[in-house]
């Protein structure tokens, strides 16, 4: 119906100011839609990168074997073997798994670790710490330690220890000084403080310490294997699928970060729903705006509709003329709004360098295509009522006016 399109376009260009206002109104709705998409998406991205970005995305942890229970045929528990306290559970074949895990698509880093509890002592001062043994050269694979260093070097070597500034301050430790670390298994070592970091996370800064994997081996009496494998993914949203693949590949219990992060996910979900709510309102505003403007136009053009009907234009033709006007307004408003939205988002920092204190707008999450599509659909739906009322115009009364 090329001809109906021509008439629709002419109607829109005939009253330029009115059409411009209508398109602008639609564009504002689309702008809000895109702004909300970018904000909600960016906010989620920001929150996730702040909370989960520094964490392992998929973790394989050595399981302490459950105490074996011997059950008597009569149903009586005969003996319970207490969980071994001295021996640390380990992933003894870690060395064979790591290259395997590295082949999983989306995996960007695999960090074998030995973790455990210990006491840090210097003179009379003692602090309880959680010890992580990292492979030298891969210290920043999971937590970006290098990025948080304030003094010294992140590089872990034999006899070196890296800890948080807060802990160092508590213990009046300075770079280059020595400190004694005793592990929960009873082994102790004297280590030299070679680096200080400040992550801003009180738990890490106040009670986590890092040593080399070999130091941890000695401390926890673990001649081979590791206790934990941390895996970082390119996209942390893929954690569930990646964990499944890794578990299938290795037979190990790979846990995605999403497990145990239900509250965070719920909060993000609530936030996303707020976004959907606001975006729906933006769309409803567009629909109401287009519907009322077109309805007004059908009243104004009643005599013309009557003439067209008398000249042999069918009802379908009239419907098409008005629905096409709606679609054109939706398209123009959608594209204008999307362009304005994109331009407005340009000045915001990209998702890699969100800063605290600014809105974490993510220009890549503007949902431009979706916004335009929904707007066109909305505008078409909005024009159905006016179009039907136009098609019902009685030519006799319309021309007689």
């Amino acid at each position, binding site marked *: 119906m090329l*001809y109906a399109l021509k008439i629709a376009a*002419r109607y829109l260009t005939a009253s330029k100011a009115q059409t411009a206002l209508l398109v602008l109104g639609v564009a504002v709705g689309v702008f809000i839609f895109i702004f909300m998409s970018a904000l909600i998406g960016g906010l989620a991205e920001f929150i996730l990168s702040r909370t989960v970005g520094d964490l392992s995305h998929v973790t394989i942890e050595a399981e302490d074997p459950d105490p074996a229970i011997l059950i008597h045929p009569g149903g009586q528990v005969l003996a319970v073997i207490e969980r071994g306290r001295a021996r640390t559970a380990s992933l003894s074949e870690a060395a064979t798994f790591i290259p395997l895990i590295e082949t999983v698509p989306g995996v960007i880093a695999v960090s074998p670790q030995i973790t455990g509890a210990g006491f840090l002592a210097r003179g009379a001062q003692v602090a309880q710490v959680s010890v992580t043994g990292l492979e030298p050269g891969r210290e920043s694979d999971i937590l970006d330690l290098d990025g948080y260093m304030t003094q010294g070097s992140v590089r872990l070597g034999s006899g070196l220890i890296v800890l948080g500034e807060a802990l160092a301050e508590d213990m009046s430790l300075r770079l280059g000084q020595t400190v004694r670390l005793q592990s929960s298994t009873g082994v102790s070592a004297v280590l030299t403080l070679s680096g200080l970091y400040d992550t801003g996370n009180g738990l890490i800064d106040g009670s986590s310490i890092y040593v080399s994997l070999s130091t941890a081996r000695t401390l926890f009496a673990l001649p081979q294997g590791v206790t934990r494998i941390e895996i970082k993914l390119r996209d942390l949203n893929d954690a569930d699928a990646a964990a499944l693949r890794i578990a299938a590949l290795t037979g190990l219990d790979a846990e995605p970060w999403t497990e145990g992060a239900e509250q965070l996910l719920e909060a993000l979900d609530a936030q996303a729903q707020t976004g959907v709510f606001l975006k729906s309102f933006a769309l409803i505003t567009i629909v109401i705006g287009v519907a009322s403007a077109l309805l007004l136009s059908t009243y104004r053009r009643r005599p013309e509709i009557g*003439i*067209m*009907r*008398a*000249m*042999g234009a069918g009802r379908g033709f009239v419907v098409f003329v008005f629905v096409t006007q709606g679609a054109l307004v939706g398209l123009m408003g959608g594209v204008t709004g999307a362009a304005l939205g994109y331009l407005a988002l340009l000045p915001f920092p990209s998702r890699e360098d969100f800063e605290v204190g600014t809105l974490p707008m993510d220009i890549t999450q503007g949902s431009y295509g979706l916004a335009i599509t929904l707007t066109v659909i909305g505008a078409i739906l909005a024009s159905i009522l006016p179009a039907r009322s136009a098609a019902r115009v009685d030519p*006799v009364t319309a021309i007689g*006016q």
Partner: protein
Amino acid sequence: MTALLEVSELVKTFGTGEAETRVLRGLSLVLAVGEMAALLGPSGSGKSTLLTILGTLMKPTSGRYAMLGQDLVSADDTELTEFRNRHIGFVFQFHNLLPDFTALENVVFPTAVREGRETAAARARGRELLTRMGLEARIDFPSANLSGGQKQRVAVARALMNRPELVLADEPTGNLDRASAMQVMDLIAEINRDEGTTFLISTHDEKIAGLCRRQIVVGDGVVTG
């Protein structure tokens, strides 16, 4: 003489109960192919009502209406729209043209709406008709800027676009000055003579009616002369 259309016992009432007005009360009329007839009668006698029924824009309350052998009382909206497009042209007194379109675009409308687009052939015929109406200088003029007489001549051109058998004109010269009115009537007479198109023209003007070969007078809802 072959009949183009025939109406018989046409009744049209508006409203119901107390407010009921019987406008046409059993009107019968035959129009022959090639006739040029004036429709006369006092104001409120039902001239416009008859023209709208003949133009298939309104259905009679009762009675028969057939044109070109087709029963137009029982036809549905789609059939009537199609029939109107092919066989009937209209010239109204007011609100004749689509104001946002040029003279030519208005003239080709009846063909374009049927064909789904403005073809070169349709444009050529539109130009020819406008030239015949003495409007060659106004072909691409926005119709809103035309004078009253020019608008009516564009309307006549448009009514002829699809080569209809019948053109219904409801006071086509009603708001024109004498010179413009005469010009429009001369063109109608010329088309009627050259192409045999049947015209039915309602008017209050005896002089205009005098230009037609037949005068049909309505009164009290029937043809009185």
